[in-house]
């Protein structure tokens, strides 16, 4: 064992216990234990929780460790500071004596089993008071963040409401506890159950707003994500319509007639997007996928003067995912028509029961996907990211002077599965 001790010492030269508040959930005690002993952090936390359930023993242990173990980068522990904190000591002693009195009373009434909770409860209370008063600034912030929804003391929170909540909780708690006590001496089985329900109700009243806020945070976060996705969708639409048209205008700058025509068409499209909310390139809801592919063919042939050869196998109704896939396909086709130099672009679309695939191929000059500047968002944003956002996939294969093929695939929604007609 000697060499093991050596080994451990070599690894952690000071050999002292430390807390890691910035890595932990509360005071970083479990993290510290895990770091010191090498036991998995989750296991340590589980042990603390289990001990906490065993008469609050784990809570007391945790809080004492919080007091006695210095945080990383600190030289003293909170406990040492607490000893010098006279007010804190007074408050702690006062609270402890009140609690002890309550427990003594309870055990006199006949609820001796509650006495088993007493010691850990008293120790925890003293520790919490000292920690709250003497912990360094950042740890106090953590505590406040945790306690704040519980008590609701920050800023201008309506105190009347908090008081009301605490009052209701108190009434429920007293009712619950007394029912429990009565039930303990009585043989009636339902009463203790009612007591439990009341205690639970008390917990809900106290913690309910906290849970609600946590729930609201989650919802808000999801909304933010949805907004970000909408923004990205809009960016790709702008790219597909406006930026593509601007590129075309630059390439045809020598032909004023064409430029005017392009600008007019773009203006019409933009207007109908902004004022009639008809997104560029969007389709009527009752079109099918194959019809959408043929629409791409018609559009690109009209605007870009290339031949688009379309082969479709199978067909299905369009949903928003497939609409995005069509938008990506349109983008790929426009890219091929604009940049490849090829006169023919081939589109192949196949609808299978489980997925829809689409291939856009040209025999043009090809390009190196890695060499495309990052501000050219056509491939990365309008095609790949758009497909991924909707659960699909896009790959680009390009060989210099042999051409480019963009492959798109999108799994079909389970509800749309249909047996092909015989």
């Amino acid at each position, binding site marked *: 064992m000697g060499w093991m001790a050596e080994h451990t010492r070599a690894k952690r030269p000071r050999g002292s216990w430390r807390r890691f508040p910035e890595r932990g959930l509360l005071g970083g005690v479990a993290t510290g234990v895990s770091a010191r002993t090498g036991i998995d952090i989750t296991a340590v936390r589980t042990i603390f929780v289990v001990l906490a359930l065993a008469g609050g023993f784990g809570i007391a242990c945790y809080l004492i460790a919080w007091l006695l173990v210095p945080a990383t980068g600190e030289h003293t522990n909170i406990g040492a500071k607490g000893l010098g904190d006279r007010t804190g000591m007074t408050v702690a002693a006062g609270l402890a004596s009140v609690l002890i009195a309550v427990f003594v009373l309870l055990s006199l009434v006949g609820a001796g089993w509650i006495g088993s909770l007493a010691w850990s409860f008293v120790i925890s209370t003293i520790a919490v008071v000292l920690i709250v008063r003497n912990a360094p600034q950042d740890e106090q912030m953590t505590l406040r963040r945790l306690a704040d929804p519980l008590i609701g003391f920050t800023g201008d929170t309506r105190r009347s409401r908090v008081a009301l909540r605490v009052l209701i909780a108190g009434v429920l708690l007293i009712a619950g506890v007394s029912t429990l006590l009565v039930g303990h001496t009585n043989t009636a089985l339902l009463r203790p159950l009612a007591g439990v329900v009341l205690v639970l109700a008390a917990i809900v009243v106290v913690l309910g707003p906290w849970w609600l806020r946590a729930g609201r945070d989650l919802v808000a976060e999801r909304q933010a994500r949805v907004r970000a996705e909408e923004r990205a969708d809009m960016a790709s639409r702008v790219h597909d319509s406006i930026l593509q048209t601007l590129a075309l205008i630059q390439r045809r700058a020598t032909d004023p007639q064409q430029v005017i025509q392009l600008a007019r068409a773009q203006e019409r499209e933009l207007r109908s997007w902004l004022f009639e909310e008809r997104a560029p390139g969007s389709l009527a809801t009752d079109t099918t996928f194959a019809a959408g592919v043929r629409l791409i063919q018609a559009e690109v042939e009209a605007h870009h003067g290339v031949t688009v*050869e379309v082969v479709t196998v199978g067909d299905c109704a369009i949903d928003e995912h497939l609409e995005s896939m069509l938008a990506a396909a349109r983008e790929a086709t426009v890219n091929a028509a604009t940049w490849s130099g090829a006169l023919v672009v081939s589109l192949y679309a196949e609808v299978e029961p489980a997925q829809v695939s689409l291939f856009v191929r040209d025999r043009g000059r090809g390009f190196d996907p890695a060499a495309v500047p990052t501000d050219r968002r056509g491939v990365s944003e309008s095609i790949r990211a758009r497909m991924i956002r909707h659960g699909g996939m896009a790959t680009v294969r390009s060989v210099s002077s042999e051409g480019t093929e963009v492959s798109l695939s999108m799994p079909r929604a389970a509800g749309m599965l249909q047996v092909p007609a*015989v």
Partner: protein
Amino acid sequence: MSVPSSTRTRVFIVDDHGLFRAGVRAELGDQVDVIGEADDVEPAIAGITHSDPDVVLLDVHLPGGGGQAVVTALRATHPHVRFLALSASDAPEDVIAIIRAGARGYVTKTISGADLVDAVCRVAAGEAVFSSRLAGFVLDAFAALPADDQERPSFDSELDQLTPREREVLRLIARGFTYKEIARELFISAKTVESHVSSVLRKLQLSTRHQLTRWAAERRLS
């Protein structure tokens, strides 16, 4: 680089548009011998019987019954004459019908001159010529057949289904790959690609499956 006339493929063109016949003639140039042309079913049958060409370029749609009628009429008496369907844009059922009648391939009128010459020579050599559109039609037709049909008669079951490899080859043709590119993609020889395509053609022509006919009928209705 003109080919000596004795070995040149002898081609007969059937199309109801005179302008188009002239166009094809010009596109084929002196790579093949255009030995005759016709604008409808009856003159086509007469002309082909008389001139006995290697390859007939056949429009899918003709006023007097369609290209299918020409193939059906001549298949028994002139088995060595090969038909290549050539058309602008057609309903898949018409194209499948003309292939089932006996044509060795189908190309669209947008095909380039060089590709057309190549297709004609390959048909003359007995190969099957699938354009991307035909490959799509065939995939569609076979996809419409249920994979596990209880009524399937056991003796010709393999004629009613494409093998995964054939499907793969057809898919690549539909995506616009040439045979050579398909061979490279699948790590097989161009010859093997050709044999897969021929096998698909045979299945298409020999399958007695009612479903193929029914599929066509349904397509026509919708």
